């Protein structure tokens, strides 16, 4: 049974149909790629699944056996879906560690009332959470920055924090919206190894949107290709890479250095 399943998922903005009748199955334990030209609806898909946008009537989203089509964002998060944002949206006035602690929110083992009546247990549990989060930071290599406000990090560092914050949710499904955009090639490799390590360690299912093909090709088990909100291809990375429609809509021809130079000048 797929972990996430969408049935006839649609979303229009005014006259624009950003997603139309999309059926996607994401198998548990897999790394699933979602690619497509700019504006093809990938981020919209993320927003629909995580409840940021409400899908059009007739759509259905099922996660782990629950129908989450109409659920609120925070309930969806509690069910085990974590995501990053294309534009990150870190809590910029909070420290890196606090960002992660918010990610952990749904697993906080005490309620509001115990913060009033049973403060010592709260303090103890927070200390535990903190060390857990520090471990996670260690894992993504940001432990040194734990007490720094997120606003003072560079673009690349922020991406890692966003990843960490999503991981702090202890999700079943991790959805990454262009996690490698703007990273230097070396750091792209680093990021990939971090994601792979996290996946193995926590038994994650991962959905990646990425334009850096290397990421998709090297990590994904299955790739879905969108164009104008519709699925135009799906399969293993290699199969998709050679799919004519996909090349036409998204990849373009592969070229060696000289061909590229020539293309520049054409």
């Amino acid at each position, binding site marked *: 049974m797929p972990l996430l399943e969408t049935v006839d998922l649609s979303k229009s903005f005014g006259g624009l149909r950003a997603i139309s009748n999309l059926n996607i199955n994401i198998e548990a334990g897999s790394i699933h790629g979602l690619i497509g030209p700019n504006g093809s609806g990938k981020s919209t898909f993320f927003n629909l699944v995580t409840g940021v946008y409400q899908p059009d009537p007739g759509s259905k989203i099922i996660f782990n056996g629950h129908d989450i089509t109409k659920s609120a964002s925070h309930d969806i998060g509690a069910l085990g879906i974590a995501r990053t944002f294309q534009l990150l949206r870190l809590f910029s006035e909070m420290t890196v560690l606090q960002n992660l602690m918010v990610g952990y929110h749904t697993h906080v083992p005490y309620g509001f009332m115990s913060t009033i009546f049973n403060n010592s247990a709260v303090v103890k549990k927070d200390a535990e959470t903190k060390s857990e989060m520090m471990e996670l930071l260690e894992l993504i290599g940001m432990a040194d920055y734990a007490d720094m406000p997120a606003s003072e990090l560079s673009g690349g*560092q922020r991406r890692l924090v966003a990843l960490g914050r999503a991981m702090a949710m202890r999700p079943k499904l991790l959805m990454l919206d262009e996690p490698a955009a703007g990273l230097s090639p070396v750091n792209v490799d680093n990021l990939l190894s971090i994601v792979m390590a996290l996946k193995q360690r926590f038994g994650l299912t991962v959905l990646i949107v990425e334009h850096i093909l290397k990421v998709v090709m090297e990590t994904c088990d299955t790739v879905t290709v969108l164009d104008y909100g519709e699925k135009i291809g799906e399969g293993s990375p290699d199969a998709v890479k050679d799919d004519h429609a996909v090349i036409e809509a998204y990849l373009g021809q592969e070229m060696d250095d000289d061909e590229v130079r020539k293309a520049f000048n054409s």
Partner: protein
Amino acid sequence: MLKVSGLSTGYGKLQILRGIDLNVAEGGIVTLLGGNGTGKSTFLKALSGLLPVWEGSIEFDGQKIQNLPPHEIVRCGLTQVTQGKDAYPAMTVEENLKLGAYVRKDKIAIAEDLERVYSFFPRLLERRTQLAATLSGGEVQMLVIGRGLMARPKLLMLDEPSAALAPKIIMDIFATINRIRKSGVSILMVEQNVRMALLLAEYGYIIRDGVILIKGDAKDLINDPNVKKSFLGGTVANSTHEIKA
């Protein structure tokens, strides 16, 4: 055309750049490469006047421009397209583009340039009356590059123009950049897509920890083993990522 020598700057008391020397020749195309957090965007901000220059000088077109207010630097012909994809969300695509030509007075030429931008990026033409807030990430990137062009700058600075773009479009963008260069605009480009950037550029600089580490002809750099290695120092985080699974 652009001559930067000994440039140092930073945020508050935190120094980021420590004496950068960099030149862009008239009609040339230069790329600045480096790991994350090494100070590339900071460098561009200093050139545009958004950050004060602590030390060193910036000479553009024979004129010293360090510490001029940003809008005057733009009038000198130096335009930057930022990394943040900052379009004006509450304005339409076309209004955004028109703003790019704010410093210009030649109405007819502006209209021509508008058509040109639309011909580079047909997607923008489809969405010309849409609010920029509703564009996809890649569309916004096209929009801000287009907007930069509208100023008809002498030197266009691009901060990661290909980030978050589909592969097919990246090709188009670089080709467009090349065309822009050919029309007489010099280009200074920060990139993470090292291969494409070095294929396009004539000259390259590699920055690390606020200093220029390597520089040279793009043709040489692309095959230089040190280039690859130097990226290892890029600090997404300080530690190297030996993951213990």
